[in-house]
């Protein structure tokens, strides 16, 4: 089965993600892909704590994640993939990880970013990455919570 939902969320696992999205997409495993997280004991402890009961968790670097997915490591699971940034998600896609849909849920305001909707602020680099993902035929949405519109992110750009 592998990846059933892929989300860009700056806060990685938090209330909305842990309770609402995991439940909505029916995930059995959350895979957090972030190069900083794998080296940071505090982030790891936080992710473990935020993980909903009964769901498995993997915390992987970009490189290791691409290898694992391509090996078919999670075929038995329904994976909910989370990255912190759009470029990280684009990198996984470019590395050949099979992702059915990307949802840009929560990206905070930064230097050089503009709000495309509430809770999603993209830089030019982010937008280029979104277009790259779209160009590969993968739908991209921008839903903070599941009952927001699942229209294409293109409509917000």
């Amino acid at each position, binding site marked *: 089965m592998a990846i059933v939902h892929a989300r860009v969320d700056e806060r990685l696992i938090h209330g909305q993600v842990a309770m609402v999205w995991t439940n909505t997409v029916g995930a059995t495993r959350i895979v957090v892909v972030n190069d900083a997280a794998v080296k940071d004991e505090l982030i790891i402890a936080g992710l473990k704590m935020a993980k909903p009961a009964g769901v*498995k*968790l993997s915390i992987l670097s970009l490189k290791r994640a691409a290898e694992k997915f391509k090996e078919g490591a999670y075929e038995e699971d329904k994976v909910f993939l989370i990255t912190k940034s759009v470029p990280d998600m684009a990198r996984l896609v470019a590395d050949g990880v099979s992702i059915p849909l990307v949802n840009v849920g929560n990206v905070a305001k930064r230097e050089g970013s503009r709000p495309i909707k509430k809770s999603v602020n993209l830089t030019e680099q982010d937008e280029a990455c979104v277009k790259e993902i779209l160009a590969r035929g993968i739908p991209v949405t921008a839903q903070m919570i599941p009952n927001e519109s699942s229209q294409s992110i293109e409509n917000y750009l």
Partner: protein
Amino acid sequence: MIGIIVTGHGTFATGLTSGLRLLAGEPSDYEAVDFDPEESLEVLTEDLQNALGRLKECEGVLILADLTGGSPYNTAVRMKLGGLDQVEIIGGASLPILLDAYMSRNMISDPAVLARTSLEAGKSQTICFEAPSEKAAAEEDDEIELDD
């Protein structure tokens, strides 16, 4: 669909609802009933009755009251004892209980079952933080995979 009513002292109900809205979006088949202590119990009873009236299309109603034994709870209990069998009441409402009930009601059509499952889910999430012991960390290993 089972309707949900949250009720409590002051603006507990609308406050809890603002949390739910942030996590799960604008709720439907849902009512928040605040109890202003300046108001009489008659007003609270009427507000709860009106909320139940707006949920009359629902298969049943789960009422979450903030404080077991408080006026919102007692009023709901009196209304139930007055002959509402498809109404269940939980005392000690919290966001974990509410969120679980809100999401589980898509799969559960019996209000008594919904009340029990969301109560258990809420209890399991009412905790005092403890730094994980080495034993617990070892037990977690099959569930948590770190980059290697």
